[in-house]
């Protein structure tokens, strides 16, 4: 090594400079990536930060010092807590209903040929691409015309309707990568179609179903536009928050928002850790062979 660098005069300087340049000069891609991440994280950071804001007036717009009292008093506003309870109740029901229906639809569409399959596919896409405002207002006319009392049931029905396509798409993506021959193998080993579905198809679909459940829950607990049309006098969390903006949104809203965000984050990190651990175990076992 020593002789080589001594013999070639240029060789000595070119190598180190190349190595350091990587750290010294961040390229455009790095800057761009950081900017995008900042853009995405800024609203969330503001939400988290203002949950710790020691506000005195009605408005939570200026930083006035750090406090944890909003966390202590998170359920102090009765109406807000009530709205949150309604939201959680409806969202859990929507999640269960939309995920179960979505799973069955996904399996039907992905695995079988039947009359009306094309129409169902088209309706799913149309559902996603339609304007929420238009859907909301037409649902309102529908419910009024059909004489259905507006309230928790109509919110539930509307939210199930717009959540199903997302559940179907998520689960179909999982189904597409499953080996359909495993189902034939189950039949070959004596399993009836029903037994095959519960012992072979469903367990393999679990990650997709889990994803669909999270997604439909998030869509449901978050929805404002469609819900606002069909809610009648019922208040959900987003409806209450929107209504509160005129007289000043209390910091508890930031706290609740932060908590919901943290739960989502934990779920995401948790599933990442599980996947990583499984991969590592697989690699370890295979390399030990």
């Amino acid at each position, binding site marked *: 090594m020593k002789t080589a660098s001594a013999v070639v005069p240029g060789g000595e300087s070119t190598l180190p400079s190349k190595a350091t340049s990587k750290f010294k000069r961040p390229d455009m891609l790095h800057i761009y990536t950081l900017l995008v991440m900042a853009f995405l994280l800024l609203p969330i950071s503001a939400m988290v930060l203002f949950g710790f804001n020691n506000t005195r007036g009605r408005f939570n717009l200026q930083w006035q010092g750090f406090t944890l009292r909003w966390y202590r008093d998170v359920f102090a506003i009765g109406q807000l807590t009530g709205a949150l309870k309604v939201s959680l109740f409806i969202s859990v029901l929507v999640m269960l209903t939309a995920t179960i229906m979505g799973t069955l639809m996904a399996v039907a569409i992905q695995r079988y040929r039947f009359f009306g399959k094309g129409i169902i596919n088209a309706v799913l896409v149309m559902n996603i691409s339609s304007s929420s405002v238009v859907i909301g207002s037409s649902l309102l006319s529908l419910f009024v015309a059909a004489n259905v009392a507006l309230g928790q049931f109509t919110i539930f029905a509307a939210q199930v309707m717009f959540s199903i396509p997302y559940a179907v798409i998520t689960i179909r993506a999982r189904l597409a990568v499953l080996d359909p*021959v*495993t189902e*034939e*193998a189950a039949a*070959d*080993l*004596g399993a009836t179609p029903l037994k095959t579905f519960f012992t072979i198809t469903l*367990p393999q679909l679990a990650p997709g179903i889990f994803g669909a459940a999270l997604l439909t829950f998030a869509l449901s607990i978050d929805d404002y536009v469609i819900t606002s049309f069909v809610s009648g006098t019922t208040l959900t969390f987003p409806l209450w928050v929107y209504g509160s903006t005129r007289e000043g949104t209390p910091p508890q809203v930031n706290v609740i928002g932060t908590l919901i965000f943290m739960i989502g984050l934990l779920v995401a990190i948790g599933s990442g850790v599980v996947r990583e651990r499984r991969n590592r175990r*697989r690699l370890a076992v295979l390399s030990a*062979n």
Partner: protein
Amino acid sequence: MGAQVDVGNESTSRVAAGATDHDGRSGHLALENVTKRFSDFVAVENLDLAIRSGEFISLLGPSGCGKTTTLRMLGGFEEPTSGRILLDGVEITGLPPYRRDINTVFQSYALFPHLDVWENIAYGLKRKKIASSEINTRAGEVVELVGLSQFTKRKPRELSGGQQQRVALARALVNRPKVLLLDEPLSALDVKLRKQMQLELKRIQRDVGVSFVFVTHDQEEAMTMSDRVAVMSKGRLEQVGSPQEIYSRPETEFVATFLGAANLLRGTFISSSAEFWKVKLANSSEILVPATGKRDGVEVIFGVRPEKISISKPGERRLADTTNRIAGRVSQAVFFGVASQYQVVLTDGTEVSVYQQNFADGVSHVAGEEVELCWQADAAFTL
């Protein structure tokens, strides 16, 4: 019952024999005039095939010949368009896979990825509501049989290709099927492992005594492993017989050329004796061919495998009466190491290929050399 057999050298022979199968006569499978059409495509046409109990039979043919469709009809994954399938004399056409005493080793193995090796193997027994103590005994036996004892807690993705293959085999065998179907089970393995698994599959088949129906497109694999080979082409059964029979006495041009190389020659019938026909070739040399083929008028088509022909300098050999001899000129000599291949052009322009072991260094004859080709009359086959 197999579960109570003590663990000894003989125990494996009964692992898959089942409670009622001791007479060894079950596992007889018959296809009667089976046809399968997919809209306008005929995948299998008028197939008649009897699979004997306890035999290792291969369905051999190029891709698209209908061998896999045939296997899927046996397993219950496809229904024949017409015809019947009988297992031990009982019609099973129309029965779903889960009502057939037949198990399958799939080409892709199709192991259940969310279950470990043990759970994969016990899956079929659980569906049959077999007592858990017996599940343990039987699963334990097959795990031993395929040599996977240390791996029972692993998930399929944590196994190598060869190990996955064994799990697939164990998972099927543990059910003591009357017939085991294998759909190109070795095609995903590398050559070395493949050779090893061929021998092992054959050993396991002999040990458990179950009829194996083995689908393959590899003629060498079919010949090494099978008791009988059923050659298929374009949805039709070409010929069924022992590996020696179909190799040495092919009945159709397809069988002759699909199983190794063959020189197919034409001649004119002159006369016949008890064993042989005398045939005149285009170059007017007269030779003897076995009197076994169909003779359509005076034209006779016959074949000789390249390794059955010996090549020598003219007049070098003393010959028996039943040996054919024709003259030719070497057009090409290719050295392979263990043997050489010679292309020899007869005086009428027909090209014949000959393999000969390399007794000396390099090729024994060079291009342009006049040679004599000799073969025993009964080493040829008449189509």
